[in-house]
């Protein structure tokens, strides 16, 4: 049996340590306030700004959005609200120059088979591609997040019903489903968005359901229940805000995917009306010309898609890093800026 070093040495007693002298200092320790309150979003934004690639991506997106908005004048109800026209020609006007002109000063991106100015069309096409990306992802979030959150929080038959629907939709190859939807409902901007939303929400629903399952187990959810907060308030105010970060990252990255999907559908002739200045449709219309040597008809809209998707991915990565609690560690090394 091991011997304790204290064996046979009597009780420990400290003398001369005057506790009274310390009396007024006892409560002072608790009052040292840590750094001033910083909003979570402000911290995330500060981290995002440090990521140069993400900021560059954001700049590219902003630039493309501005170019798209200012490409042609915008009229609302007959009133011109945006008079600037960066694009030199009407994107749908044919015969502004002879067909298949290579890039030149007057037509920087050349002209296509109908003599339309490719530069104007690429600028203007941003309106379709960007708005499809943003609108389709937003609508998919609006559908997917509540359904997934309810499924995860309610459990039971609600969960089963919603998640089996998700499984069924997942079982369809994306393009087959989109083709079927377009075939049934026809072409058009909102129908294209509808098809993209119909296949897009399932991913968010699955993602947030998984997060909700783990967040719902946290103590502060139990604490809220112990306070008599109603279930839908707990879900909306405590569970979803704590579960949303991965969904935000996924949604940001998905804007690029959705633009690609819209382009793919456009390429297959299932997107917007033929002849629309949407990037995918332009690629599709110009695919025969690549062999003929008229590369500019396809390369410039292709480049636009590439650039936009790349920028979105950079931003998405930046958002992920900014929202990831693990990267909080650099708070200490960088002096908490």
């Amino acid at each position: 049996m091991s011997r304790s070093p204290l064996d046979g040495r009597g009780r420990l007693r400290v003398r001369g340590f005057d506790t009274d002298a310390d009396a007024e200092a006892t409560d002072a320790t608790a009052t040292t306030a840590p750094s001033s309150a910083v909003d979570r979003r402000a911290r995330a934004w500060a981290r995002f700004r440090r990521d140069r690639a993400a900021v560059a991506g954001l700049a590219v997106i902003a630039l493309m959005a501005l170019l798209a908005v200012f490409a042609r004048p915008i009229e609302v109800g007959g009133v011109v609200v945006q008079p600037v026209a960066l694009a030199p020609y009407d994107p749908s006007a044919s015969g502004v120059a002879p067909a298949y002109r290579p890039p030149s000063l007057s037509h920087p991106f050349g002209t296509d088979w109908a003599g339309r100015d490719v530069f104007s069309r690429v600028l203007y096409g941003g309106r379709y591609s960007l708005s499809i990306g943003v609108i389709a992802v937003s609508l998919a979030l609006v559908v997917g997040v509540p359904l997934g959150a309810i499924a995860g929080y309610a459990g039971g038959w609600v969960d089963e019903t919603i998640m089996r629907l998700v499984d069924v939709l997942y079982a369809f190859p994306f393009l087959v489903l989109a083709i079927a939807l377009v075939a049934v409902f026809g072409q058009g901007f909102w129908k294209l968005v509808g098809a993209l939303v119909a296949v897009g929400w399932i991913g968010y629903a699955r993602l947030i359901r998984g997060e909700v399952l783990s967040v719902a187990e946290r103590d502060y959810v139990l604490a809220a229940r112990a306070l008599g907060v109603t279930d839908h308030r707990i879900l909306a105010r405590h569970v979803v805000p704590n579960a949303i970060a991965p969904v935000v990252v996924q949604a940001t990255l998905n804007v690029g995917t959705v633009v690609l999907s819209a382009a793919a559908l456009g390429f297959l002739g299932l997107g917007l009306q033929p002849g629309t200045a949407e990037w995918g449709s332009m690629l599709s219309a110009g695919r025969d010309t690549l062999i003929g040597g008229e590369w500019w008809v396809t390369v410039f809209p292709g480049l636009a898609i590439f650039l936009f998707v790349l920028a979105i991915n950079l931003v998405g990565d930046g958002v992920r890093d900014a929202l990831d609690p693990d990267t909080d560690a650099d708070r200490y090394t960088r002096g908490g800026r």
Partner: protein
Amino acid sequence: MALLEVDDLDVRFYTEEGVVQAVDGLSYTLDRGERLGVVGESGAGKTVAALALLDLLDAPGRIEGGSIRFDGEEVLDASPDRLRRLRGGEIGLVFQDPETALDPVYTVGEQVAEAVRVHTDLAGDAAHDRAVSLLDRVGIPDPATRATQYPHEFSGGMAQRAVVAVALAGDPDLLVADEPTTALDVTIQAQLLDLFDDLAADDLAVQLISHDLGVVAEFCDRVLVMYAGQAVERTTVDDLFYRPKHPYTAGLLSAVPRIGDDRNRLQTIPGTTPDLASPPPGCRFHPRCPYAEDACTKRDPPLAAVDGESDAHRAACLAYVDDADFDGDLDFYVEVDGEADP
């Protein structure tokens, strides 16, 4: 009439390993302004019993029987609406780990204000002002500034005070504190106990769940000792520490280490808590009890009065059951050196 009357409460968890009887026939009462300590080792059912008070158990846990009367009203029959008002409004709950009991995405002030809005007519700025005064009440310095800060900017002790402020927002009559000091170091523990002391002086009943006998000795009026889902001893703090009657209580007390002790090893109670999916027959403590006899394996002892007439001190041991086939003698005693027995 007592503020809280728990009668023969049964809670079971339906798991894949079988039915776990987490709380088995638990009965106790709590008066207005009284401080009850609930002690026992991990897995004794202390927390489950506390959550059951507000019907907060989730599947697979279910309250299978018994009754919980708060102020004479049956909690288990309450409508969802009434239950929501009961939660926080009449019974406040304080959790063990303050860091996880606060939602990281809201400021502390907002979380207290939310509780205020749920239980009072106050809204907007009025709710926020009330939240600040509650933070002040629980001893958070500079409450107006601290209210705008997030939980991660709070130390453990301050966060626990904020959790107490949340629990107090509905002006409850009973505060159930589930190991409120376990995650804190001893100096902060002492400050927090002072706070509870202060609150209890305002006629707030406190049910303090702890496995720290020192905390219980300092704070509580009465104690309930739980073992394997059952109450094994119920008495005043004085009697518990100076005149323990149940072998398990004696074991717990002997296991408390003391500075300057001349023992080589820490005293333990041999064995571990039984698997509640298949508890031992008879008295649940008998496999670990040095006084166990044949009779103990056959009969589950009721919570019997230890000295016949008085209801104040009860222990669940066959030694106190008159018609039991128990011949031995519980020959443990408490030795007090230095001071006279109070």
